[in-house]
């Protein structure tokens, strides 16, 4: 192809692409996203189904070790549950005594995952609900019964990008279950681990303790489960302690999430 004709052709391709991009990003993005969601949802479901089957096979090789670890956790959680039930009863009695008016400040929006980042740990993913449903940046995202998996990073009218708690730039204020004081900040350090930093030296924290959100952040309610403490040690060159937290939720196993929005 003659050089001039080739250059003209390339210019045409670039012009058409830029026009198409402009139309997509500013005019028809909402419509195109909703159309794509129809195809993306079953693809994500299929991939996640394969992931769950493979995870089962992978776990079967380390079954004994995993079984012992889970037994230890179960014993610890059984004790925690008894304490929790006592606290709930006491709380209910106090509320009745004070004629306490409980206000539910949060509602939840259910959404399907339509795409994920291609990074180890899937540290961001996109859902098919957005600002039209009241979702705003910073809203917490949970799975099952209050397991925190991430926060809203970005929104469009019909979609939202979620950053998982294992992302290295996402920080969350946390406390140990049963305590009300914020004890530190949790950040992602790898695919499936979190680091809890800036823990005061006098904090009572031990292996297998449950870590929850402390409610310090405006849009994040307290009491959302994050994970279990795996290890506690002094921070290098610092007067604080740090702990390694194992998240309880695996976002790779989920196709449906719930975004907590403020009323």
């Amino acid at each position, binding site marked *: 192809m003659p050089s001039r004709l080739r250059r003209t052709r390339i210019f045409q391709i670039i012009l058409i692409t830029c026009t198409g991009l402009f139309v997509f990003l500013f005019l028809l993005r909402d419509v195109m996203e909703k159309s794509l969601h129809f195809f993306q949802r079953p693809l994500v479901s299929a991939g996640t189904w394969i992931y769950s089957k493979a995870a089962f096979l992978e776990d079967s090789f380390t079954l004994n070790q995993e079984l012992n670890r889970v037994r230890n956790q179960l014993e610890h959680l059984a004790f925690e549950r008894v304490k929790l039930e006592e606290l709930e009863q006491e709380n209910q009695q106090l509320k009745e005594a004070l004629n306490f008016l409980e206000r539910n400040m949060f509602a939840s929006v259910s959404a399907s995952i339509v795409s*994920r980042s*291609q990074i180890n740990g899937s540290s961001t993913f996109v859902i098919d609900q957005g600002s039209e449903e009241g979702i705003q940046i910073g809203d917490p995202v949970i799975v099952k019964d209050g397991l925190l998996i991430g926060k809203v990073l970005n929104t469009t009218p019909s979609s939202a990008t979620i950053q998982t708690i294992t992302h*290295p730039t996402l920080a969350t204020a946390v406390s140990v279950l049963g305590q009300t004081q914020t004890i530190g900040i949790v950040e992602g350090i*790898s695919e499936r681990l979190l680091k809890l930093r800036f823990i005061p030296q006098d904090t009572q924290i031990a292996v297998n303790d449950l870590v929850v959100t402390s409610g310090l952040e405006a849009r994040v309610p307290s009491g959302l489960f994050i994970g279990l403490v795996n290890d506690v040690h002094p921070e290098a060159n610092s007067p604080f302690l740090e702990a390694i937290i194992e998240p309880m939720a695996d976002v790779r196993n989920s196709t449906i999430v719930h975004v907590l929005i403020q009323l």
Partner: protein
Amino acid sequence: MTRVIFSFLSFVTVFVVETSFLSSLPSVFSLIPLVFAFGVFLLQHQGLFDGFIWIGLYGLLLQTFDLSTIPFAFFSYTIAAVGVLFTARNIFSNRSLYGVVASGIAGYFILLFLHGCFLLFLYLFGDSFVSWKWFVWDYGQKILLFSLTTCVLFILAWPTRNLFPVR
């Protein structure tokens, strides 16, 4: 015009398959760089400028949807596409499997350098945890998967040669 629309729709299909299906798969399969492999294949083996557009568009969509850990992903992937274009036309100009894989790896090394610079900046001036081990391991896996994906594309190239004619 029809060919451009077909190329754009093909890109969207491959992008959706990569970010929705492949990224949900377990283990190393979630890192298969399908769009990048297609882009390099079109650019180097088929001699089509569409491949350059595919790689640049890929970076733009990753940045738009915040699905990349590299900031300014559009900029990074466009630079990588320029690198692939340059190596395809001047260094690895032989339209063989070797040429395609070599051009693609050159593009990945550009991405690795740009991403590494960003992480270094974060490590030196920011307060975030940076895992160099995971960074190198991630890119190592992607380069290997890219090479394997390109081999598969080569096997499928002959039966599908009329879809994107060689220039």
